[in-house]
């Protein structure tokens, strides 16, 4: 029996090779079809729609025009864009600082308890997103716990309005994006060679700012990428925690599509958002490349 199989096996492998070519295609075709069909093609179509006129009853017209973009590059909308970018930037900075603190702790101070801490970091992430936002609405409410603490410490008056406010939005954003910031920074810091730190200590220099921080830079840049780009598209947090008073791009797009039914203009705004996100990503990748000295070693 065994000898039969031994003489058969090489033949089978050789004959199977053309068959493998087709089966490979079969393996990747559905994913490609789905992604090209539902992401790439629609996006090309969005660009087309952004250049279209508005048809009757909120449909898409057949003309070609730059009016949508011209309408966007007016003061009101540019203000919204600026506000969104600024909010994302603020959020990124806060997340990077807090993320670095936690990432440093996890990489150097947590020791054997590290998996537990990482799990604790991710567990809130698994609780429903809206539940977490609801929790913050309660916590930051005028008679809630945080306000009471602040009042006891005489930092704020008895009926301070913590929510809705810009600060509350930043707290909510930090809460949502912190894991995305901590994990890349932690991964980056873990690759720091301990012998380098030892050597620096022996030479008597302050190891942290001169050695650890620069070596951890790729992780920090990756964290910036994972926080800045997605945060440009948020629209739930500002509504629930910010009272929806100051409009940002996410809300604008939702409003245009679902309430005003102005699809061409909404499409133009989406394209602008996409371009900005792409610019941010390119900037981050370039920063990663220069920090690494090699070809962006993330994926």
């Amino acid at each position, binding site marked *: 029996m065994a000898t039969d199989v031994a003489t058969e096996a090489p033949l089978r492998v050789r004959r199977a090779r053309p068959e493998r070519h087709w089966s490979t295609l079969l393996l*990747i075709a559905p994913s490609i079809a*789905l*992604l090209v069909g*539902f992401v790439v093609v629609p996006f090309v179509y969005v660009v087309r729609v952004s250049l279209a006129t508005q048809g009757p009853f909120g449909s898409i017209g057949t003309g070609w025009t730059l009016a949508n973009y011209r309408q966007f590059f007016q003061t009101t909308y540019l203000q919204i864009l600026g506000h969104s970018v600024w909010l994302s930037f603020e959020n990124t900075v806060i997340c990077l600082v*807090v993320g670095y603190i936690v990432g440093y702790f996890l990489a150097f101070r947590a020791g054997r308890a590290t998996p537990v801490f990482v799990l604790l970091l991710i567990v809130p992430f698994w609780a*429903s997103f*809206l539940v977490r936002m609801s929790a913050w609405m*309660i916590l930051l409410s005028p008679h809630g716990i945080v306000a009471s603490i602040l009042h006891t410490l005489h930092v704020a008056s008895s009926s301070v309005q913590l929510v809705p406010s810009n600060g509350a939005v930043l707290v909510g954003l930090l809460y949502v994006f912190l894991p995305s910031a901590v994990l890349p920074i932690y991964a980056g810091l873990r690759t720091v060679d301990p012998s380098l730190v030892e050597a620096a200590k022996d030479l008597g220099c302050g190891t942290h700012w001169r050695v650890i921080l620069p070596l951890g830079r790729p992780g920090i840049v990756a964290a910036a990428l994972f926080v800045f780009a997605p945060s440009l598209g948020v629209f739930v947090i500002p509504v*629930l925690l910010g009272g929806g008073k100051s409009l940002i791009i996410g809300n604008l797009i939702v409003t245009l599509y679902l309430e005003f039914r102005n699809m061409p203009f909404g499409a133009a705004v989406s394209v602008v958002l996409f371009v900005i996100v792409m610019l941010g*990503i390119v900037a981050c990748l370039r920063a990663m490349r220069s920090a690494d000295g090699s070809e962006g070693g993330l994926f």
Partner: protein
Amino acid sequence: MSRTRRRWTQLRAGALDTFFSVATGVVYVFLLAPIVIVVVYSFDRSSTGFIWTGFSTHWYRTLFHDGQMWQALRVSLVVGAAAATCATVLGTMSAYAMARRRFRGRALFNALLLMPLVVPEIVLAVAFLVFLVRVRAPLGYFSLICGHILVVLPFTTLIMVAATSGLHRDLEEAAADLGASPRQVVIRVIVPLLLPAMFASFVLAFLFSFDDIVMSTFVNGVGTTTLPLLVYSMLKLGVSPEVNALGTLLVAVTLVLLLTTGVRQATVMLKRG
């Protein structure tokens, strides 16, 4: 280097370390406190949700009788299960192809698979909606499920890529040498080995889909409101203790799901030695 200077540097380093540890502690309290708050306040008798008035399961009973909630839950479960299944299958196929087969355009395929991760979900959702409108597709279960697959696919693919990279080629070759046909190798060797990762990927995909707001906002139809969308509309009117009760239940279920996945994977790894 002088002794005082070295001691000063050491002191500074020690202070910095303490700062990091304490600050991290504060951050963790910040992360976990809201969950505790939600659970605690779900048992609060009053409806203001600010000041604790007394223990009561009233809101759980209200939740139980809320028909809209049940309908939304049904929608979310169906969409989640369908999207997670498809995404897991597709992710496994793609991951296996990338791990075991050589084909041109690998980098492009890789980029394509990861694109939904990098692009803000709102851009994805808008594009998909515009496309659906153009081809006059009805908005409902189909649009929701496809949209959710798009959102979840990068995650399942990443998990399965990690899993397939851990597959030993020797096992497949050994099976082939023992006389298994390529199909048998797949069914009897590869799939069972990948099953724990597929299960984990399914759970993750389901959780992401169940929690999804952005995509659902754009592509849901009349009568197919998902649970997060319903909760969001309730929250826009103000804090609702019913939401807290729902939240507590969701946290409990999520924890159970994740623990079972973790325990299952651990036992499988232990059995394999």
